[in-house]
C-alpha cells in the first residue's frame, strides 16, 4: 500500500518552488513525480525581442548565481554567429570571471547542503568563506553577484594590475580553508552518516539520463566542457577534471570542493599567462543570417545556448538548455529506494536552480494533447 507525500511547491527544504509527488511505502520511496513550472519567466521569447547587446544583460539575469557563465555562453554563440574573435586578454578575463563564479557557486551549494543535514556551523563557515570570492568579484568586476565580465566581442572591464596582489592573497586564504573543509567532510562521522551511500546515481543511469556537471562527474562520467570543447582560454591552461566513482552525496560534495581547488589553480595560471593588449573588438550592429550553439561549463554543468540570427540586430530565436534542466531526471534514481528524511539532501545534491529551469507546456487535461498558446491568450490570462 503506497501513498503520495507532496513536497512543495512551498517547502522549507526547497529554496524555490517545485513540486515533488513522492510515492512512499512506509518510510521508503518507491516513486517520484516532478512538476516544474512555478517560476517561468519567458526569457527565451524576451531574448528574441531584444538586440544582442540588450540580450547579453538579460541572459546574465537568467540565473542569479551563474550569471557570468550565462552571458559567456550567450556571447560564445553570438560571436560564432557573427563570426568575430575576441582579443586574447579578454579570453583570460573571461576565464577568471567564470572560475570566481564557480568558487562562489560551489561554496554556496556546500553551505546549503550543510544546512540540509542540520550542520549549521559548517553552513555559516562555508558562507563566510564565500564572502571572499564575492569580494574578489566586486574588486575585479564591480559587482558581488552580477559580475558578468563578458561583453560581446571581448570583456566588459579590464583587470587592473594593482588588484592582482589582493586577488592572489585571497586565493591563498580560500585554498587553505577549502583544503580544511575537504578534511572535515571526509572525516566527520555525522556528515559521513548522512551523506555516504545516500542518493546514489550509478554511472549507467547518469549516462542514460544525460546528467551533466558535478552530478555526472561524481558518478564517474569524465566529461567537462572546459576540456572537451574548450572556450575562452581554457585550451591554454592545464587543469584536472575531478571525477569520483561512488555517485553518492558525499562524492558530490567532494567533487565540488576539489573543483574549487582546481578553479583556484586555473585563476592563478590565468593571471600569469594573461597577455597585455586590447580587451574588446567591435561588434557589428546587424548580424548576418546564421545559427550557432555556444556551450560553457557552468558551475552546475553543461550550459547550452542556441542562437539563430536573421540579419537584423535581434536574434530570431534563442534556446537555453540549463544544467539543472538536464539534471532533473537523475533525481528519480537517486531518490527511489531511499527514505523521506533523505529527500532534502538528495534533491539539494544536484544543486538545482529552479528559476533557470522552469518551462511551461500547455496540456489539455481531457485529451492529453500539447498545444501552443497564442500571444492573445497569454495577454488575456495576464489580466
Amino acid at each position, binding site marked *: 500500500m503506497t501513498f503520495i507525500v507532496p513536497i512543495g511547491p512551498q517547502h522549507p527544504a526547497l529554496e524555490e518552488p517545485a513540486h515533488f509527488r513522492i510515492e512512499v511505502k512506509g518510510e521508503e520511496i518507491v516513486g517520484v513525480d516532478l512538476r516544474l513550472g512555478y517560476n517561468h519567466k519567458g526569457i527565451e521569447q524576451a531574448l528574441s525581442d531584444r538586440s544582442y547587446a540588450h540580450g547579453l544583460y538579460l541572459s546574465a539575469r537568467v540565473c542569479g548565481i551563474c550569471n557570468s557563465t550565462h552571458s559567456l555562453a550567450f556571447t560564445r554563440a553570438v560571436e560564432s554567429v557573427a563570426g568575430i574573435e575576441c582579443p586574447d586578454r579578454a579570453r583570460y578575463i573571461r576565464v577568471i570571471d567564470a572560475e570566481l563564479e564557480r568558487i562562489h557557486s560551489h561554496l554556496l551549494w556546500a553551505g546549503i547542503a550543510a544546512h540540509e543535514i542540520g550542520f*549549521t*556551523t559548517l553552513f*555559516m563557515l562555508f558562507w563566510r568563506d564565500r564572502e571572499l570570492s564575492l569580494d574578489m568579484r566586486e574588486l575585479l568586476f564591480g559587482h558581488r553577484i552580477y559580475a558578468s565580465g563578458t561583453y560581446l566581442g571581448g570583456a566588459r572591464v579590464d583587470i587592473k594590475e594593482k588588484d592582482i596582489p589582493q586577488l592572489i592573497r585571497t586565493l591563498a586564504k580560500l585554498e587553505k580553508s577549502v583544503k580544511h573543509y575537504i578534511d572535515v567532510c571526509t572525516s*566527520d562521522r555525522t556528515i559521513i552518516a548522512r551523506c555516504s551511500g545516500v542518493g546514489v546515481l550509478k554511472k549507467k543511469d547518469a549516462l542514460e539520463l544525460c546528467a551533466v556537471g558535478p552530478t555526472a562527474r561524481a558518478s564517474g562520467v569524465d566529461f567537462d566542457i572546459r576540456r572537451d570543447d574548450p572556450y575562452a582560454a581554457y585550451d591554454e591552461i592545464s587543469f584536472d577534471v575531478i571525477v569520483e566513482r561512488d555517485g553518492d552525496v558525499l562524492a558530490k560534495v567532494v567533487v565540488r570542493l576539489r573543483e574549487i581547488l582546481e578553479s583556484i589553480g586555473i585563476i592563478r595560471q590565468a593571471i600569469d599567462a594573461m597577455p597585455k593588449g586590447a580587451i574588446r573588438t567591435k561588434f557589428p550592429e546587424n548580424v548576418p543570417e546564421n545559427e550557432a550553439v555556444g556551450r560553457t561549463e557552468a558551475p552546475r554543468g553543461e550550459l547550452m545556448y542556441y542562437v539563430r540570427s536573421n540579419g537584423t540586430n535581434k536574434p530570431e530565436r534563442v534556446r537555453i538548455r540549463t544544467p539543472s534542466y538536464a539534471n532533473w531526471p537523475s533525481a528519480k534514481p537517486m531518490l527511489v529506494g531511499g527514505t*523521506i528524511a*533523505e529527500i532534502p539532501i538528495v534533491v539539494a545534491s544536484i544543486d538545482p536552480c529552479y528559476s533557470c529551469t522552469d518551462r511551461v507546456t500547455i496540456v489539455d487535461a481531457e485529451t492529453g494533447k500539447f498545444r501552443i498558446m497564442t500571444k492573445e491568450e497569454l495577454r488575456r490570462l495576464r489580466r
Partner: protein
Amino acid sequence: MIEALGYVLAFFVFPGILFASAVGLLFAGIDRKLTGHMQHRIGPPIWQEFLDVGKLFGKEDITPAAANSFVFNCAPLLCFGAVTAVMLLLPINSSQPVLTSVADLIVIIYLLNIPAVCMMLAGYASGCPFGTTGSSRYVVQLFGYELAFITAALSVAAKVGWSLSLSSIVSYQAQNGWMVSQVALIPAAIAILIAAQGKLLRVPFDIPEAESEIVHGSLTEYSGPKLAILRIAYNIELFVVAAVVVNLFFGGPVPHTIGGVYIPGVVSFLIKCFGIVVLSTVIRNIAARLRIDQALKFFWTFPTLLAAISLFLVVVT
C-alpha cells in the same frame, strides 16, 4: 497554612516558575550567543531570549481550525507545569529539595517525560503533516534516549545502595566525592550526557524538529502565547535536565569556601549546570543531524551499552 503558603511560594518564585524561567531563558540566551561565536557570527545579545518570549506573548494567537482541540490547547500548560514541578523535587540550594519523597528520582524521570508526551500529542492533534511526522519521530527518539538515561540514573542509584532519593545521592557525593570521579560511573556519565542531548532535541538529535525537513515538527502550528509558554518550558527543561545530570554525577549543590569567600550551594550548582549547558552547546555546533533510524541505532548501542557497563560494574563491585 504557613507550610502550604511556603509550597505556593516555592512553586511560583524560588525555585519554581520565576527562578527557573529566569535561569532557563538566560541559559538559552548564552547558548545562542555562544553558538553565534562558534559560527563566526556576532550572535544575539544574551537577553535576546527574554525579548523573544516577551514578543511572542504579545502576538495574536492563531490556531488552525483543524488543530483547535482540547489537547492542542492544553499541551503547552501541561508541559510547562510538569517541568516546573521537577524544580521542586531537585536539590538546588542544599541536599534537601522543597518536596521530599522516598523515590523522587522515579517521579523526576516521569515528570521529565511529560513535556515529550505533550509535544507528541500536540503534534498529532495539530492536523498538519509536519506535526504528525515530527511526533512520530519523537516517539521513536523517546524510546531511544530514555533507556540510556534511565540505565545511567539507575547505576548511580545502585551506587548509593539502591536509594532512589536525590537528596541521599547528593549527600553521598558530599562525603565521597563526585560520582563522575568513580571509574565505574564514568561510562554512565558519558551516556547520560548523550541521552540529555537527545532529550533536549539538540543536534545531532534534533530529528523531531528538523527545520530543513519538517519545519518545526510538532510545534509547527503553534503561535503567540502558546508558543511562548512552550518556549519557556523548553528553556526550563534545558536547565532542569542539566540540573538532574549535575545532581546525579557532578556533586549537586555543595557550598564551598574558596580563599575565605563563601560560595553558597545554589551558586556552585548554577555554575555546574552552566558547564553542562555549554558542553551541550558545543556538541550541537560540531555535528550534523542524524537520521531517525541512525539515531535509534546509535542510542541503543553506544550510550545504552556504556550505561549498562556502569550498572554492571557498580552491582558487581
